[in-house]
Structures are given as structure tokens and as C-alpha cells.
């Protein structure tokens, strides 16, 4: 019997160790996968995979940045003198245009004459820049030059201000507006949620009667159980028009609407944790304060709040964590415009919303797909910093300030 119990205990021990190990391994693998996919972006060419840019061989242009390529094909840069020593109006050319110039049967059965025709077209026009699939490049043609393409670089990703991942020929991966958008929306969400959350926590732990408390606490915890898409729907239909009308704004889908929704979503976390921290103040400490002649209010802000300060900080940090990773509600109310935020009453695009909206149709393994993984890495690093600081704060001395 005793032996049997020993075996059972050892088995349980092994099982527990194993489950812990498997979990850690899974997390590690996810992180490795995330970073491997994400960092692949910097090995991708700045022009869509399988395509190349061709110019006339008399054209002295050596290299174009992704930003310049995009602006040329949007007809915003219209003259070669803006990007190189050459003069003359730029003619952007896409493959489809060749089919409007010749009847279909002139390209041959398997398009074997297509490269030749493309070569002729380029040779005729010294100002052309053609965006062509690599398999149809007019290789033998002397008057055609293939423009070398650089890889997407780190500075363009973290410093770029345009997020146009599906632009052809040159997608723009400027993540700065997304990173800033995420941080600002979360920051203001906490700025709104903190005073309310603390107020409610103080009320519930110190002032409310037992019956009120018994009613309030489950109600607030219920808030945490509402699916985020419901919050988003509420925000889009109620909050957005309300903000627009009362503040007389041109658009209601703003960073402010996002912050407000996130604040509501972060409240239950903040309230519950802060309240628990305050209630854990030893009875002796409260009574000592009151016995020394302090009023209840003085007791709250001189004794209880300082004692609970590490718990309150943890509440704030976890609230931020909740806000930063939130996807659906933000996707619905912020308008998702990838712009650099100059005011709170502007539309904004966050990282989670971008991943959710775009990953479904991004071709697996392509630059767009990798860029979304890299965004995921950034989000991971941000939340890791936050939870590390939560850990650090929670470990701090409880009796600080007394």
C-alpha cells in the first residue's frame, strides 16, 4: 500500500514537471517561430516577388528607393530629373498595358513572343519604367536595363510613415504610425481608466457597505466577461456618433473613441486588483491610524493607498497590457487610418487591428506576411516589457511610505 502511494506520488511529480516543460517549450517555439518569420522581411526585395523593374539602357538612373518607385507609379514623381540626372517625363508601364497594344494572338501560344514585344516597347521609349514579371524579361535586348532592387531595410520599416502593404510595384512597410498609434491609444486609455478605476476601488474597499459591495463586485467582474466584439459594436453604433456630435468633429472614428472603449475594457482589471491590494492592508494599521486621530480620508490616502501602491501599480500595468493587445473593439471604432497621430481626435491604426485585418489575405511567406509577423514581434516585445515591469513593481517593499 505504502509502495503504491510512493509510485503514485512520483508519477504525479513527473506529470507536473512534464506539463510545465511542455508549456515552456511551446511558448519558446512560438516565440522562435514569430521572430523567424518576422525577421525574414529584411531579406525580401523591395519590389514584389517575381517581378522586376526595367528602364531604357540610355537611362543613367542607378537605383530607386521603394518610396520613389511608389511615387513614380502613382504619377506623383513625373520627371526623371527628380530622381536622377536624366531629364524627361516618366512613363510608368505595367504588363497589362501591352495587351491593349497588340492583339492576343501576336504573343504566340505560350506567350513566347511576349518578351520580344516588351523589349520593343521599352526600346521605343527612353523615358519608360516598366514593371514586368521576371519570366518575361526581354533579356537579349540591348536597349533594356534591369534596375537593381535593394532589400527592405530596417530603417524604412521602423522609420517609414506609410503603411501600404499591397501597393504595387513597391509595397510600403512604414510601421511607425502603427507603433505610435498603439502606444498612444493605450496610454490615453490608461489615463482615462486610472482615476475611475482607483476611485471605484477605494469606494469598494473602504466606503461601501457589505451589501453594496456584494452587488458591485460581481457586476464589475461581469464587464470583463463581455466579448470584445460586443464592446466594439457598442462603440461604433453609440460612442462614435456621440463623440462626433458632442465635440463637433468631422469624423467620429478617432483615437479618443478607441481609448474610451479600451478604458472601459481595462476597468475591471484595474478595479479588481487595486481593490484586493487595498483590502489586504492589515486591520492593525488602519486602526492605528484612526486611533492616532486621523480622519477616515487621511487614513485612506496616507496609509491604505501607500500600502497598496505596488498592487495598484500592478493593476495599472496589467490594464495597459490588456489595452495594447486588444484587437476587435479597436478595429471597429478607430477608423484604422495609418497616419502619424497629431491629436487625439484623429483616426488611428493599431498593430493588433492591422494584423487581424490583413493576415487573412496576405500570401503566406510573402513580404506582407512577414511584415505582419514582425509587427507581432514588436507587440510581443512591448507586452514583455510591461509584464516584466509589473513583476518588478509587485516585488517591491509593501511598507514603503509608512
Amino acid at each position, binding site marked *: 500500500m505504502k509502495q503504491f502511494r510512493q509510485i503514485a506520488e512520483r508519477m504525479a511529480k513527473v506529470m507536473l514537471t512534464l506539463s510545465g516543460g511542455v508549456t515552456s517549450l511551446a511558448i519558446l517555439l512560438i516565440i522562435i517561430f514569430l521572430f523567424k518569420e518576422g525577421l525574414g522581411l529584411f531579406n525580401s526585395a523591395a519590389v514584389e516577388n517575381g517581378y522586376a523593374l526595367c528602364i531604357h539602357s540610355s537611362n543613367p538612373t542607378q537605383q530607386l528607393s521603394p518610396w520613389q518607385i511608389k511615387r513614380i507609379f502613382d504619377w506623383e514623381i513625373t520627371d526623371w530629373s527628380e530622381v536622377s540626372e536624366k531629364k524627361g517625363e516618366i512613363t510608368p508601364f*505595367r504588363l497589362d498595358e501591352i495587351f491593349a497594344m497588340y492583339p492576343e494572338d501576336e504573343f504566340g501560344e505560350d506567350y513566347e513572343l511576349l518578351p520580344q514585344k516588351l523589349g520593343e516597347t521599352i526600346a521605343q521609349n527612353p523615358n519608360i519604367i516598366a514593371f514586368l514579371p521576371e519570366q518575361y524579361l526581354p533579356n537579349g535586348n540591348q536597349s533594356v536595363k534591369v534596375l537593381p532592387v535593394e532589400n527592405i531595410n530596417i530603417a524604412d520599416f521602423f522609420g517609414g510613415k506609410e503603411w*501600404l502593404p499591397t501597393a*504595387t510595384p513597391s509595397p510600403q512597410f512604414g510601421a511607425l*504610425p502603427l507603433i505610435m498609434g498603439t502606444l498612444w491609444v493605450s496610454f490615453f486609455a490608461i489615463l482615462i481608466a486610472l482615476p475611475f478605476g482607483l476611485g471605484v476601488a477605494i469606494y469598494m474597499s473602504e466606503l461601501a457597505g457589505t451589501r453594496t459591495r456584494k452587488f458591485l463586485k460581481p457586476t464589475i467582474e461581469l464587464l470583463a466577461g463581455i466579448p470584445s466584439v460586443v464592446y466594439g459594436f457598442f462603440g461604433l453604433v453609440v460612442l462614435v456618433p456621440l463623440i462626433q456630435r458632442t465635440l463637433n468633429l468631422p469624423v467620429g472614428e478617432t483615437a479618443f473613441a478607441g481609448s474610451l472603449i479600451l478604458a472601459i475594457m481595462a476597468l475591471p482589471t484595474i478595479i479588481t486588483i487595486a481593490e484586493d491590494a487595498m483590502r489586504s492592508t492589515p486591520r492593525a494599521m488602519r486602526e492605528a491610524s484612526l486611533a492616532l486621530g486621523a480622519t477616515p480620508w487621511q487614513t485612506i490616502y496616507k496609509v491604505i493607498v501607500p500600502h497598496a501602491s505596488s498592487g495598484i501599480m500592478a493593476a495599472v500595468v496589467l490594464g495597459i497590457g490588456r489595452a495594447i493587445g486588444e484587437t476587435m473593439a479597436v478595429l471597429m471604432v478607430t477608423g484604422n487610418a495609418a497616419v502619424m497621430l497629431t491629436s487625439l481626435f484623429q483616426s488611428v491604426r493599431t498593430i493588433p487591428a492591422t494584423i487581424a485585418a490583413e493576415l487573412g489575405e496576405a500570401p503566406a511567406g510573402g513580404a506582407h506576411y512577414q511584415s505582419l509577423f514582425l509587427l507581432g514581434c514588436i507587440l510581443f516585445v512591448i507586452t514583455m516589457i510591461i509584464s516584466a515591469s509589473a513583476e518588478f513593481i509587485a516585488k517591491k517593499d509593501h511598507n514603503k511610505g509608512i
Partner: protein
Amino acid sequence: MLPLSQKAAEEFMKALPSATVTVTGGGSGVGIAALLEGTTELAQLSRKIKFDEKNKLKEKRIIAKEITAAYDALAVVVYPSNKVTNLTREQLEGIFTGKIKNWKEVGGADLAIIPYSRETSSGTYEFFKESVLRNKNYMSGIMSMPATGAIIQSVSQTKGAIGYVGLAYLNKEVKAIHVSYDGGKTFVAPSVTNAKNETYPIVRPLYYYYNMAAEAKVKSFIDFILSDKGQKIVSEIGFITVK
């Protein structure tokens, strides 16, 4: 296009209980990829097959047959009390690429224009970009909404808004713009009649592609969609019939 195939498959199986049709979604690119891999016999596309895709089919020696099952028109919508009714393609291009920023530049009130777009993953986004913007990029920082319903909702509550939706989604909460593709000579209202007689310009065909080798398998379903009964489903869903 997915709702059409789903509804049609449902009705088809009711009419012919021995047949089974399984419909899955995922986007036009996914459809062609499945046809290439041989995991499907019939692909539904809300755009014409791309040049590279045609090539890949050729490499695999798959002869794909194209069937136009229905048409879908895109309507440009604005806030209901907006004074502007007519816009040319060039003006729309200016608005969505960010060159035209105020309604007074196109004959409206002095009010900032707020263009709403769909997310990049949507076929509608690509089609509008090709047809109206002539392949130029949308302005950076355009408002992008995850669904057509969200566009209607936002346009109906934002005074300076402009957006685009499928014809079937038009309702009284938004105002549809009359569009001109001939430089302002004729402006045409988006409607089923105008799309059918080809006067309304922003119309895209919806296709089925199937492997000729599997024709016997899919023929009866294709025939069903092109029949009167099938085309009735097309108009019920809000698309435009082929006949």
C-alpha cells in the same frame, strides 16, 4: 461571391438530392490556388483570372473554362444630405488618392472630405483601385473599414464621408453618387437596370472557373446557376443577372 455559391448549392442539392456541393470561402486567390492543386473542381472568383495565374494553370496543363455567373456593381455613397450628386471618375480618383480634400472643390459645401475604404484584404478594395483609381494607390492614412456594413454605418453618420459599397447594400441611410467615366458628359445612377444595360461603369463580372477535365462533374451545377432558377438567386442576393 460566397453567399451566391452557398445559396445556389443549397437550392441545387434540394433540386437534385443525389448531388453534393461543398462550398468554402477564403478569397479569389485561394480559389485559383485550389484549382491548381486539384483540391477543387470549381473556383469562384470575384475578379478576372490574373496573368500569372493563367500561366501557372498552363504549366500544370490545366485548361480552365471561364463562366460569367453574375455581375456586381459598386456604388459610391455619401452622407444623405450631401449636395453633391455627380462625380466623374477623375474626381473620384482625386478624392481617394488624397488630391481633392474639400467638398467645395467638386461643387459641394465647404467641408473636409473623409474617404472610407475597405481593408486591403477585400476583393472590392482591389477592384475599386483598378477601375476607379487606375491602379494608383489610395492616399496613405485612408480610413479602412473591416466590412461593408461598417462603411454604411460610418458614412451614414459622418457629414463629409464618401465610401464605396456593393449595389446590394445601398439603403436610405446613405446617398448614392451618379458616376461619369466620360469626363462629365453623362452621369449614371447606380441601379440594376443601368448596370445591366452597361451604362453604369463600375461593374465587375463574377466568374466560375473549372477544370475542363472535370467538366462532367460540374456541368450540372453551372447549368443550374445559369438557369432561370439560378439567376433568380443571383438577383435575390443583390447581384445582377447575366441575361
